């Protein structure tokens, strides 16, 4: 939950700092640890410090108020509250430890064995878990109390057994995950015994989660143990926080202050344990995030935007990458004049982007700009290609036009005018009657862009009813026609199907049907064929071209593929590192590219290699 603490430029040191050292940097964690340390000291030395016998009462002291003799007063049997509190700390902490250690021992051993060897142990333990889950812990403890008597220790032993699945699940999951890793095989081949493998490789993975779990479980044990004692089910001879509460509650009207001390002891201990567990979890999660992020930054090498946007959508802020981006080519954009073909489009403007800047981050100081002031005109009825490598800012530009930038992203400067309406302020009012009606969107990955919980038909009908105000019947009719139009063989069946019941190609046709359903003037298609099979790609591109001709829509086609551009587009804009480097009619750019980056993009195709591979390496494509 804390803000920035580790700059990714020195990540090696970060990964090596132990969790404990980093806990010391968190004030909350330090406070929790100091409290628990004091508590441990009191638990060990408590009975020695106690001024009186915790169980010896005097009649004249019954419910005595705090005084010099009894700093915290005396309880209903005339026993010194301070002495009892000190003695109770020892018993309560020891009882919680007993439950935790019991659960830990059983859970870890069973988890290791079941995860590593599988077989019958696996089903026995899963049965035990569902048995334990069938009853509230306190009911089991009460039943156990019926036969075992009032001993705190026996109760905590039973509770430890009940809690053991918490560790079991943790260890089991970790072992199952690690079991088939190559390095475990390697260890086995090199002759390490099973017990050495378990100890070395597996326990090291689960150590930190186990410590977190232990803090949580110790808290639960303290809560339930004090609950039992509070119910009056404990051993009267043993002073505990819960027993003190029980006595205090019985005298709540005569001496309300009696409740304060045991209640404080229980609450503060539980809160300290929770806060410690939370801090450790934060640190662990952060470590994983930093590692992942580092890997991305390294593989993208040139400081491309993919790394920046991805790391931003994941977590914190790192402005250092900004410098790298700024250094890169400041060469002005090359603009080719209209040729015969593009002149036919006229020079009207449907969408005019001017000086658009998009940045990510919280607040000005730590924000990272990913689109650096780009300008573009899209004419009515043209197919305009937006080309560039992964992370060049194409998708960010597209999202900015649609007003759907991910969390943390915002337009910091420039304007986006669609047919006379300014959209750059991103307000829902500005987009009303435009987004989803006159501007539509075809996404890249068909499967993840359909809501898995709703039938395909509903996902087509709902927007039609909302945006065009159609009746349910009319919208259904229209959706079915659209499904037929985009080449779906059995529209009725697809209409009733859930997204996971159709193929990727079909899903993409559904999304295209959705996009054209409101007869938009502009479609923004973000790599609409990248996720599809090669054979399906051609069909989908044909479909988009056919629909575009049929309806005279303009299309902003985001792609990394010059083949697609050559095939489909009227004009094209090349983007690199958040800037437009070259723009013009498609033929002119293909024949005489002037910017070195455009040349290298085209060269990559001419060399016969895949355009992506040659330029960006193996990084996945988040744009």
């Amino acid at each position, binding site marked *: 939950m804390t803000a920035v603490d580790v700059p990714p430029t020195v990540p090696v040191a970060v990964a090596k700092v132990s969790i404990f050292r980093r806990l010391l940097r968190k004030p909350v964690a330090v406070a929790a640890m100091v409290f628990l340390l004091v508590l441990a000291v009191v638990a060990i030395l408590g009975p020695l410090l106690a001024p009186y016998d915790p169980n010896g009462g005097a009649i004249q002291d019954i419910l005595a108020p705090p005084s010099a003799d009894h700093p915290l007063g005396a309880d209903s049997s005339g026993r010194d509250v301070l002495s009892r509190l000190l003695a109770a700390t020892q018993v309560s902490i020891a009882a919680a430890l007993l439950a935790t250690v019991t659960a830990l021992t059983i859970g870890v051993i069973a988890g290791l064995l079941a995860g590593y060897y599988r077989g019958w142990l696996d089903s026995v333990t899963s049965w035990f878990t569902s048995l334990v889950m069938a009853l509230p812990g306190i009911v089991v403890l009460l039943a156990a109390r019926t036969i075992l008597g009032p001993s705190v220790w026996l109760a905590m032993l039973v509770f430890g057994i009940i809690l053991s699945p918490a560790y079991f699940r943790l260890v089991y999951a970790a072992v199952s995950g690690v079991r088939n890793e190559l390095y475990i095989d390697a260890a086995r081949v090199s002759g390490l015994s099973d017990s050495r493998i378990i100890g070395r490789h597996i326990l090291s993975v689960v150590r930190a989660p186990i410590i977190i779990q232990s803090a949580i479980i110790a808290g639960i044990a303290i809560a339930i143990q004090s609950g039992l004692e509070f119910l009056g089910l404990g051993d009267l001879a043993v002073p505990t926080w819960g027993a003190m509460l029980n006595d205090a509650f019985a005298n709540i009207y005569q001496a309300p202050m009696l409740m304060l001390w045991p209640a404080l002891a*229980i609450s503060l201990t539980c809160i300290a344990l929770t806060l410690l567990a939370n801090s450790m979890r934060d640190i662990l999660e952060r470590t994983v995030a930093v590692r992942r992020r580092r890997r991305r930054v390294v593989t993208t090498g040139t400081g491309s935007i993919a790394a920046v946007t991805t790391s931003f959508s994941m977590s914190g802020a790192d402005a250092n990458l900004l410098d790298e981006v700024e250094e890169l080519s400041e060469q002005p954009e090359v603009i080719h004049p209209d040729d015969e073909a593009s002149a036919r489009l006229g020079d009207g403007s449907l969408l005019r982007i001017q000086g658009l800047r998009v940045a990510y981050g919280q607040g000005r100081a730590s924000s990272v700009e990913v689109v650096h002031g780009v300008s573009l005109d899209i004419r009515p009825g043209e197919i305009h290609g937006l080309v560039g490598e992964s992370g060049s800012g194409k998708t960010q530009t597209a999202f900015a036009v649609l007003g759907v930038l991910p969390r943390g992203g915002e337009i910091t400067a420039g304007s986006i005018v669609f047919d006379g309406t300014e959209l750059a302020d991103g307000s829902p009012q500005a987009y009303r009657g435009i987004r989803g009606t006159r501007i539509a969107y075809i996404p890249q990955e068909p499967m993840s862009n359909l809501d898995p919980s709703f039938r395909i038909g509903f996902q087509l009908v709902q927007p039609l009813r*909302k945006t065009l105000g159609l009746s349910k019947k009319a919208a259904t009719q229209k959706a079915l026609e659209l499904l037929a139009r985009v080449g779906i063989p059995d529209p009725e069946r697809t209409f009733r199907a859930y997204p996971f019941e159709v193929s990727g190609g079909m899903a993409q046709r559904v999304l295209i049907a959705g996009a054209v359903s409101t007869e938009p003037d502009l479609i923004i298609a973000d790599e609409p064929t990248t996720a599809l099979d090669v054979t399906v790609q051609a069909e989908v591109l044909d479909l988009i071209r056919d629909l575009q001709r049929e309806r005279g829509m303009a299309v902003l086609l985001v792609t990394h593929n010059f083949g697609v551009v050559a095939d489909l587009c009227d004009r094209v804009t090349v983007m690199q590192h958040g800037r437009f480097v070259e723009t013009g009619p498609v033929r002119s750019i293909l024949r005489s590219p002037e910017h070195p980056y455009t040349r290298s993009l085209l060269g990559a195709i001419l060399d016969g290699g895949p355009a992506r591979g040659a330029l960006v390496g193996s990084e996945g494509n988040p744009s």
Partner: protein
Amino acid sequence: MGFFIVKRLLGGVVLLLAVSLVAFTMLYIGGGDIARRLLGENATAEVVAQKAAELGLDRPFVLQYVDWLGGAVTGDLGRSWFTSQSVFVDVSNRLPVTLSIVIGAVLLAAIVSITLGVLAALRGGWLDGVVQVISVIGFSIPNFLIALGLVVVFAINLGWFKATGYVPIGTSFEGWIASVTLPIIALSLATIATVTQQVRGSVIDAMSRDYVRTLQTRGLGTGIVVFQHVLRNAGGPALAVLAVQFIGLLGGAIVIEQVFALPGIGQLTVQATTLGDVPVVMGVVITTAIIVVLVNLAIDLAQAALNPKVRLS
């Protein structure tokens, strides 16, 4: 769907059989010792044997269990060893008290958690901070302590509610509300803490999904997207957490009832536990297990209704 229900029901029955067998074994295996414990150390061996025979503890263990099971299936859970009351009657008289605070707590927790969780996920800022603080407090402080705090503040100092006692809903609705309000609040706080976090996480996760963006580009407003699509997809994980929480609430109610002197299952169990009234304890164990199995079934069905993948596989 029918097959799905039957499968879950069968699983529940098997689980109940297992729970009853384990509990019965643990509670009754003592045989003669049980009679000795009931009569005290000074009783002669003869009297102990007589008592054991009277309670049927001298018969073979398997027979005792089959007998109990046969009765339980027909709704006969035996009689208390101390009051000779029918256990079934005792439990069913007290169940409404416990269930009214447990169900009340579930409803309150569901409403508050969804509201807070969604707002914290969408708005962030100070509200998110408030949710984090509530989570730590609700998660870590035992609910009976929260109950004690509520009693001290609202019943004793402010006098807004009666500190103890129960008014059946049939007697007076306002009286009932007044008698269950504090218990419900005390009971639900821990659940609110956990479920709010879960809802917040699920909503943040669902909001970052591609389909949410696509729905926005189709011209749907944030309201529809959040309430129809995001909440439905976030609902599954949240329900799963609520299922686990319900078991905790049932256990929590047992302790909370003592604070407010509510005549529910908790009071019955605590009495029976102290006395060693085994048939009553056994009756409570199996009743609780039945409730848990039924609730899990209901939540499974709700999951299936929310998520077509569960329903169709």
